[in-house]
């Protein structure tokens, strides 16, 4: 009840988030409204249960992995800044951003960072390598019970074989980038946020 959105989000915060993520003022306000509507506990942070309450996410085979990407290592709550930081990965890449300050750190929605986001979905134990086991587990999440263990195993083997270059039987981030160099990552990992 009452004015939820405005009293809790100050102008300075909006400016900071704008600088860090590149979202516009109105986009940030709207996303804050969404954040508060998901926050059933009304304590300014989202828990995993808050995400799982979204039916379309709950039926996504990789729903749990995606939810996990929002939470930093070992934490169970994500605040609005963290929420926006993760969402920033999905902003479309705009050409004029490339001409901005060259010494500034890479924007969150660069091609590399988008690929890193996807890489982390596979990398279950966050050791910067996708092992055969991890690949199998993620595959199992995506196909459910419809494919046999042997078939899935051979898919995993073939995938690692094609990607692995240094022979350690796992896929590092650089090998991952190489495999996906022909894919239009910018478009497939971007969401059209309206102004």
């Amino acid at each position: 009840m009452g004015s939820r959105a405005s009293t809790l989000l100050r102008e300075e915060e909006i400016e900071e988030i704008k600088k860090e993520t590149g979202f516009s003022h109105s986009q940030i306000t709207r996303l804050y409204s969404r954040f508060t509507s998901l926050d059933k506990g009304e304590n300014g942070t989202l828990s995993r249960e808050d995400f799982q309450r979204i039916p379309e996410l709950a039926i996504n085979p990789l729903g749990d992995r995606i939810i996990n990407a929002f939470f930093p290592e070992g934490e169970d709550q994500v605040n609005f800044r963290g929420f926006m930081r993760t969402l920033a990965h999905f902003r479309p890449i705009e050409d004029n951003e490339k001409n901005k300050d060259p010494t500034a750190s890479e924007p969150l929605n660069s091609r590399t960072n988008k690929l890193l986001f996807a890489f982390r979905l596979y990398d279950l134990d966050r050791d910067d390598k996708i092992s055969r086991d991890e690949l199998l587990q993620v595959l199992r999440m995506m196909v459910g019970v419809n494919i046999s263990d042997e078939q899935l195993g051979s898919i995993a083997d073939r995938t690692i074989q094609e990607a692995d270059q240094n022979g350690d039987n796992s896929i590092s981030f650089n090998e991952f980038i190489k495999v996906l160099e022909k894919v239009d990552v910018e478009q497939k990992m971007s969401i059209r946020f309206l102004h």
Partner: protein
Amino acid sequence: MISLFLCMCLGISITVWFTLLLVFIIVPAILGVSFGIRRLYMKTLLVIFEWATLRMERGAKEKNHHLYKPYSNGIIAKEPSSLEQEIHELRGSANSLRSEPEFEMADIFYFCRRGVESIVDDEVTKRFSAQELESWNLLTRSNYNFRHISVRLSALWGLGVLIRYGFLLPLRLTLAVTGVGLLLVLTTMVGFLPNGETYLSEKVHLICYRICVRALTAIITYHNRENKPKNGGICVANHTTPIDVIILANDGCYSMVGQVHGGLMGIIQRAMVKSSPHIWFERSEVKDRHHVAKRLGDHVADKTKQPILIFPEGTCINNTSVMMFKKGSFEIGCTVYPVAIKYDPRFGDAFWNSSKFGIVNYLLRMMSSWAIVCSVWYLPPMNREEGEDAVQFANRVKAAIAAQGGLVDLLWDGGLKRAKVKDAFKEEQQKLYSKVLVGDQDQDDLSEDTLVPDERINEDDIDTDSVKGLCIQCEPTPEHIVLTHESVSEE
């Protein structure tokens, strides 16, 4: 002396009050006429709201701030494409005949993007909270980010509070008590008359509902009254609030369906049954699907009995969409009269968010809003066609109601307000993806393979779900008093 004087003043003012009440509200309710006071009130309010909006916009420009605009067009633009389509695009090839299963690491992008899109904006969760308004209507409860409120506007808001709580609320409470009291007394009286006396009982019901409508200051516009439900049929409508019942019963006589209650509600239920045939179920009977279907079937078979009123969604939705209709009511095999109800949220949002407010709190909020403005459309009657099963029929009716009311037609179950989504839907997604990997072994219908539930899966859960859909739904808190039903979570 002074105390005597005060008593006299009090006495006179009360008398005047009640006389005015009688003349302007109760007598017209009995006769079924209207002075048009409510419509004038509505027009005045609209003018004031527009002025308020202009002032806020001006205030925002002066301070060079951004004015918050609710995401009426959505936060993101989604493209409707299927799993198959997108994965093929990702791979850049379109070979459908493969001997070996083909997996690409890029496949994950599809699920990833869809998942994050649903986090930012999904079709379901936003239906269970009140919709945001384009402009402020001087109620604190609908103030989301309208912070450019000048002194003048605050003064207006203060005046509004005075009027609403000081004048309108007591007035409405008086009327509500009168309406309910009259209902109890008159229906009991009519009950003593010989059976089959329908004219008086109809009149009694109508009078009491008219008083209740005035108790809420409900301004209702009925469209296409030639399609009004007739005896021997079932009336189905979209559900937003328990007040829906009053809105519809104001214009016609229906048989209500619901669970037997204790307390005040139980008294009202027993009184109503004395003068006209309503269908109240004991709690234990609700689980017995066949028993319920039989009672309803018997009722519609008897052409002298009024049409039954049912809300197939099973729960209150926020009036921006229509959610899945439970198929129970559509299996009975009689004529269905669809009705679309659309509320105008500018004067007071009628949606009952049962997880936030109990029923008493809700009614008080309703009675302290400006007004409840809604439109009711009676749609032409529909019958089940050859070769159509109950689910398809239900969807057809739902589509008609959604189209008329300007609501979004969703396949999702309103029960998701409380219950978790069934695993079967996730399994459906996994099955679709597996098909893409290993190729199509059997040519199933893949047209619905966007992340939306497949209706066919609901057939497994027919027993208790369809029965719940037959009763007028209400939320499962013990203190509420409205006509109630089971909740989805009570399985």
